[in-house]
């Protein structure tokens, strides 16, 4: 482990210089993207912390080092730097270290040192990368859950009448969920009429229309009636231009008209109570 002790000594001796060079490199690499947002101070802090971790890891390879690493990666993620930049920076530091330390060593020593250094620093970099990736994955899955929650709510508005407002684009996954929610909701609420409101659906293509038709068929099989409401002019145009046949389905242009029709179907109407 003489290489290790050499490295520690070297880092401790030349810390200031290393850091300065590294920070310069980082800010020059990053000219276009982030430098307006990130000050040199931030680079210095981050760099300093990274070096701390390296040294700490080298001296005592224990659990604390792992924890420190985790904190550090979390911090990096929070800073919102892109992964590419982070990896480049870490590589850059390795390069700087290497050049400084093997200045006038023989080739064999260079290789030996390079090997030792690599063995030491790769797990650390990998850890950073891992954390970055996993936190990213977590974010994506959280957003997916949030999206699922928002995906297909079913709202009972009167006895036996429920509304499902759809907002946003519909893909196959979502269509499936919509269908399931719709049918389960119909059974649960004892709905006789279900209104699917597509006011918030920006594009209705053949696929979406197909899903909507399927949903309304399924609703009919379960024993309720399905109305499609909120057909905007441009949607009507697309539907006809695509040659989609919606004759089987009752359609209305607004939720209001749909509700009126639904009440009529269940033999009810709204009257004003004035004299």
């Amino acid at each position, binding site marked *: 482990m003489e290489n290790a002790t050499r490295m520690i000594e070297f880092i401790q001796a030349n810390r200031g210089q290393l850091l300065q060079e590294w920070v310069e490199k980082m800010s020059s690499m990053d000219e276009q993207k982030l430098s307006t947002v990130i000050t040199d101070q931030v680079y210095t802090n981050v760099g300093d912390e990274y070096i701390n971790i390296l040294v700490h890891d080298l001296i005592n390879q224990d659990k604390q080092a792992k924890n420190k690493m985790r904190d550090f990666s979390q911090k990096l993620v929070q800073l919102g730097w892109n992964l590419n930049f982070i990896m480049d920076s870490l590589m850059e530091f390795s390069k700087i270290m290497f050049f400084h330390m093997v200045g006038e060593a023989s080739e064999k020593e260079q290789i030996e040192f390079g090997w030792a250094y690599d063995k030491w620093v790769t797990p650390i970099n990998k850890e950073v990368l891992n954390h970055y990736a996993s936190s990213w994955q977590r974010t994506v899955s959280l957003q997916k859950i949030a999206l699922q929650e928002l995906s297909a709510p079913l709202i009972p508005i009167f006895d036996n009448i429920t509304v499902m407002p759809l907002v946003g684009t519909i893909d196959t996954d979502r269509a499936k969920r919509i269908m*399931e929610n719709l049918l389960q909701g*119909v*059974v649960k609420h*004892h*709905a006789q009429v279900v209104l699917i409101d597509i006011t918030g659906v920006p594009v209705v293509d053949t696929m979406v229309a197909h899903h909507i038709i399927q949903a309304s068929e*399924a609703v*009919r*099989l*379960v024993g309720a009636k399905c109305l499609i409401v909120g057909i905007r002019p441009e949607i009507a145009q697309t539907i006809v231009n695509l040659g989609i046949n919606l004759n089987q389905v009752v359609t209305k242009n607004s939720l209001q008209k749909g509700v009126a029709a639904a009440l009529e179907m269940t033999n009810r109407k709204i009257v004003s109570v004035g004299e």
Partner: protein
Amino acid sequence: MNGRIPILKLYNCLLISIQWELDDQTALQFQEDLLSKIHETGVGGVVIDLTSVDVIDSFIAKVLGDVVSMSHLMGAKVVLTGIQPAVAITLVELGIHLQDVRTALDLEKGLETLQRELGE
């Protein structure tokens, strides 16, 4: 389980509740039984309750569709009730739409529908 499906007469309706998964043989047997029962009793309506059926394959669906058309020919109106959401999804995905079949949410609503139609 291979047995006959009981067909009950209730005023001017026939009441069938299918309580287990139908196999092909039972389904065909049921088709014959129902038609002869309609002939025998001369009822005006039939309610087939599918609440406890979790799976319907394309053959069973075809038989059900056939039964509905056949009963119609014999002058009896048929209502299918209590089709489970999962079953409905499967049927639609199989492309079986049971186009001219009346459906209702549960047995009660099915009988109401039938009474209304027969009353008119």
